[in-house]
């Protein structure tokens, strides 16, 4: 009779000691240690430990899969074991991942993908790559599960070629600086196929993906930090799309909103730090920021207001004037979809000069990206509040959940301005020919006079008088107003409609 306990122990030890040593040198933990840090002690139930057990050197076929509890909540976990053939995928590796996804779907629980894999095992390609239950099915499942159950990826090492799509389909991707990487073709392949000489870090490093490509959501310095961030995210989202997101006891903000009066400039062209507004609005210490390093002209955070989760999109006048670009529009659209899937109300802090203009951005597809943002906004299934902090110009008003976009309410501060465009471009547009004939001093006086008239036209009290905004509030009232309104608007998500044809 086989000594199962001894075999289990052997299989749980993973690959050869030299690979464990190598991982240790680069600050990487063993796959089972990662799971241990993630879940509640003793809660792990494993399937497929004996996968490929008749073949020496392939313990568990290079992936650990099972169920466990995270802070008392049921989750499904897969973790590549990079000590076994560099975490590469054979036929049973793929089968184990597929079964884990199917179990998560059956149980309606979140999935954690702990990725550290060299990709397909080329020697096994016919068995693991092309077929109905080949690797492609993993991505198919991820796409079908998207927005139904939370899918969280912690990227600890490489995620190469097709494997790079596991992280890309998750709602949240956390990457460890220096170790995590994603790329479709390695630097060696890039050199041989297209002649480019590039380092792995430049090509697909964690920092690059969190800053430039925008695939990564959160950059962390080490693995325990990645696990901590994943747990923080889970605290904001429900087990599945049918449940409501968890609430906790509320706490006061870190700063008083009355003080914002001196921080938000009245003049609409001056920069200031929108993060100060965030700090005065949300529960102290509750901010969980996504894509902090990417498209920084728009801030996207999950946070709490009186203990209830809220997703906040805030224009950042400190960066690129808070103007919306292609990347910030993509960032906004995705964040809105995330909040909508998990039933998290959205607060829009608006101070936006509009979408970027000029030939360069038009060629990049600004209209397409802007349409994507407005499409996501229009189809969001959760309460939406727009707070006009200062400017809401042009289609920026629309993009930040303006009055026409099904917002539960539009609130305006005394600094708010709502217009198709700011005074100067508007006057130029209307009086271009007339002004072209004027002498410089005459033109300056004319511009001054027309600016005063225009400002009167777009004065926020006039806008409020026309019922374009639902309420005017003072700086000191922001937090209380939001607490009361969010409490009131709290309701189940609207049912999902047909997906439509999203511009992208």
């Amino acid at each position, binding site marked *: 009779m086989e000594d199962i306990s001894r075999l289990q122990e052997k299989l749980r030890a993973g690959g050869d000691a030299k690979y464990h040593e190598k991982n240790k040198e680069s600050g990487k933990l063993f796959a089972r240690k990662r799971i241990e840090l993630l879940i509640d002690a003793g809660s792990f139930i494993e399937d497929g430990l004996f996968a490929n057990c008749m073949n020496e050197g392939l313990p568990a076929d290079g992936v650990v899969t099972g169920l466990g509890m995270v802070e008392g909540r049921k989750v499904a976990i897969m973790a590549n074991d990079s000590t076994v053939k560099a975490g590469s995928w054979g036929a049973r590796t793929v089968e184990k991942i597929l079964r884990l996804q199917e179990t998560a779907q059956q149980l309606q629980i979140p999935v954690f993908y702990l990725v550290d894999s060299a990709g397909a095992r080329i020697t096994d390609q016919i068995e693991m790559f092309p077929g109905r239950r080949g690797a492609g099915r993993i991505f198919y499942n991820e796409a079908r599960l998207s927005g139904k159950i939370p899918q969280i990826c912690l990227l600890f090492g490489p995620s190469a070629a097709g494997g790079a799509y596991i992280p890309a389909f998750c709602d949240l991707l956390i990457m460890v600086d220096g170790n995590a990487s994603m790329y479709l073709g390695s630097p060696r392949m890039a050199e041989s196929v297209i002649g480019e000489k590039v380092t792995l870090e430049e090509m697909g490093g964690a920092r690059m993906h969190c800053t430039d490509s925008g695939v990564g959501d959160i950059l962390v310095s080490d693995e325990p930090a990645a696990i901590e961030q994943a747990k923080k995210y889970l605290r904001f989202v429900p087990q599945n799309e049918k449940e409501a997101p968890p609430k906790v006891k509320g706490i006061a903000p870190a700063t008083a909103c009355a003080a914002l009066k001196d921080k938000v400039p009245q003049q*609409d*062209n*001056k*920069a200031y730090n929108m993060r100060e507004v965030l700090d005065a609005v949300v529960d102290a210490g509750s901010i969980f920021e996504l894509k902090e390093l990417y498209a920084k002209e728009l801030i996207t955070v999950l946070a709490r207001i009186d203990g209830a989760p809220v997703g906040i999109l805030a224009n950042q*006048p*400190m*960066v*690129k*004037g*808070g*103007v919306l670009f292609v990347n910030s529009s993509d960032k906004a659209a995705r964040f809105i979809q995330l909040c909508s899937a998990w039933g998290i109300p959205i607060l829009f802090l608006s101070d936006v*000069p*509009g979408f*970027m*203009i*000029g030939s*360069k951005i038009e060629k990049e597809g600004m209209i397409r990206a802007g349409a994507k943002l407005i499409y996501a906004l229009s189809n969001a299934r959760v309460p939406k509040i727009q707070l006009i902090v200062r400017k809401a110009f042009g289609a920026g008003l629309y993009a930040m959940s303006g009055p026409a976009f099904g917002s539960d309410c539009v609130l305006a501060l005394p600094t708010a301005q709502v217009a198709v465009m*700011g005074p*100067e*471009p508007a006057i130029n547009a209307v009086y271009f020919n007339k002004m072209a004939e004027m002498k410089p001093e005459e033109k300056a006086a004319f511009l001054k006079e027309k600016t005063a008239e225009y400002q009167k036209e777009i004065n926020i009290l006039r806008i409020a008088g026309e019922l374009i905004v639902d309420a005017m509030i003072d700086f000191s009232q922001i937090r209380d107003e939001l607490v009361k309104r969010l409490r009131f608007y709290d309701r189940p998500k609207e049912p999902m409609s047909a997906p439509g044809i999203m511009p992208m």
Partner: protein
Amino acid sequence: MAKIKSEMAGTVLEIKVKVGDTVTKGQEVAVVESMKMEVPLQADVAGKVSKILKNAGDFLNEGEALIELA
């Protein structure tokens, strides 16, 4: 040699340093006006200003350098 580049297309409104000045990382070195906003331009590395490539009032494209650091 590092270059301080504009993140967006606009007009140089003000240059806050001169050749020979030492700048620290994150220091505001210029203001670019774009989309009727004053957009601060910050040094992303520390260094000594060796060249100023544009004057106030000049157009600066996205990604174009304004200042060179030695």
